[in-house]
């Protein structure tokens, strides 16, 4: 959920930064300061302002997965080949049509790379966040079983976390192959 929200936010902003050098320079300082903050450091602030543990978790996932996607999108969009943009210009394409028909497919592999990195980080963070917040989830389960001293359950849970992480990564790898193009 937080991941999808991050995707929804990162793509348009990434396009904006990639297409406009002015926006890139305007937003860069904020991104540079916000990006290195550990997502878990947001947790107390999120709990305090939102006052709802599950929405806070979503917020933390959002904040940790948005940066790789944002930066990769911006990079992918900014490095679309000049000649393809020139083709779009000579065909009198509108900016929206250019973005959808030329820039998006051209930068899709780079964007997908960002999404793949993001989903990995999101999965790492969600387990840690669940340990902190408690109540639900696999992270909470691990911590709970540790308190019960049920090491076998902890090990099963760890294996599950690894397998789900692998599945998520494979899903992204498959998506990457779909949008890849031979140049």
């Amino acid at each position, binding site marked *: 959920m937080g991941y999808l929200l991050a995707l929804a936010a990162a793509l348009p902003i990434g396009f904006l930064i990639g297409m406009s050098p002015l926006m890139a320079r305007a937003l860069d300082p904020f991104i540079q300061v916000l990006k290195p903050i550990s997502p878990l450091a947001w947790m107390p602030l999120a709990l305090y302002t939102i006052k709802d543990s599950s929405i806070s978790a979503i917020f933390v996932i959002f904040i940790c997965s948005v940066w790789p996607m944002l930066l990769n999108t911006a990079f992918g969009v900014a490095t679309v080949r000049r000649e393809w943009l*020139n083709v779009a210009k*000579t*065909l*009198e394409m509108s900016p929206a049509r250019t973005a959808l028909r030329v820039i998006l*497919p051209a930068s899709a592999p780079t964007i997908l790379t960002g999404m793949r990195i993001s989903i990995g980080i999101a999965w790492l963070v969600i387990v840690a966040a669940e340990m902190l917040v408690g109540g639900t989830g696999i992270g909470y389960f691990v911590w709970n079983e540790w308190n019960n001293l049920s090491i076998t359950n902890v090990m099963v849970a760890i294996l599950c976390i690894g397998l789900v992480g692998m599945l998520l990564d494979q899903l992204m790898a498959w998506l990457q192959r779909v949008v890849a*193009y*031979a140049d």
Partner: protein
Amino acid sequence: MSTAFISAQRLTRRFPQASGASELTVFEDVCFSVAEGEFACLVGHSGCGKSTILNILAGLDQPTAGHIIAAGKHVEGPSLDRAVIFQSHALMPWLSALGNVELAVSSRHPSWPRRRVREHAMKFLALVHLEGSAMKKPAQLSGGMKQRVGIARALAIEPRMLLMDEPFSALDALTRGALHDEIVAIRKATKPTVFMITHDIDEALLLADKILLMTNGPKAWIAEVVENTLPADRARIELHKQPNYYPLRNHLMDFLVTRSRELAAHADMRCKDLHPAVVRPAVATPTSHAAAAVAAQRSGLASNGQIASGHICAVQPCVP
């Protein structure tokens, strides 16, 4: 000229330099015109601003001074009336050959249903003999086939003029020859107005009605317009057997090798009205010889000794 379809008037382009102090003037006061249905080739050395002129004509770049009028309108930006065939084919690698042409067609006709767009695109792929490879991605096509898709894409929007930026320079000689034949065939069928940049003199002689010769940069200008005196139905295979072939070729070679440099050093030799001299190199006939020699001398053409070498230029010198 009232019949000019494309007309460039005192076109100047300066680029700011990294060092900051002075701007680099690539070309200055370039004037030329192309009539409707005419095939014009622009020839010159690297760095004289040929591609910049084409980009300005395409609307992708702006001149520092001067302007271009195309089809009665001031060129301000890119237009579907002026299709560009890029040197590097510039196909979208994620689309099939057909998809690339369809993208252009649907940009031209946004209201067309998908089937009509597809039929139209297929028609133009068939024109360049690629109907069998329509579903292939550019990476699966050879260099010549890619450029054919580029040509189909440009023609499919049915532009009023075609702009080609060294379209065949990245291809091997055999493929280039085959594409020349296709361009000749397409020209016969559709009679487009074409402005092409090339380094290849034989290519220019085969395709062009007139050849614009540019001096070396910086501060380059179009010094001469050479009218192609070869017969209109010339074929690639017997181009060199035409009596006027060598006078033309020698004239062009001579310009590129020596005079483009000499003229660049003597910008003061330029005509006052800035329009290029019109030259018609042809085999000497007794009557034309004397008159042309006089005219040539007046326009500063004789400095290279080409009159003495037996070739003759019918020159229409510019008004001083």
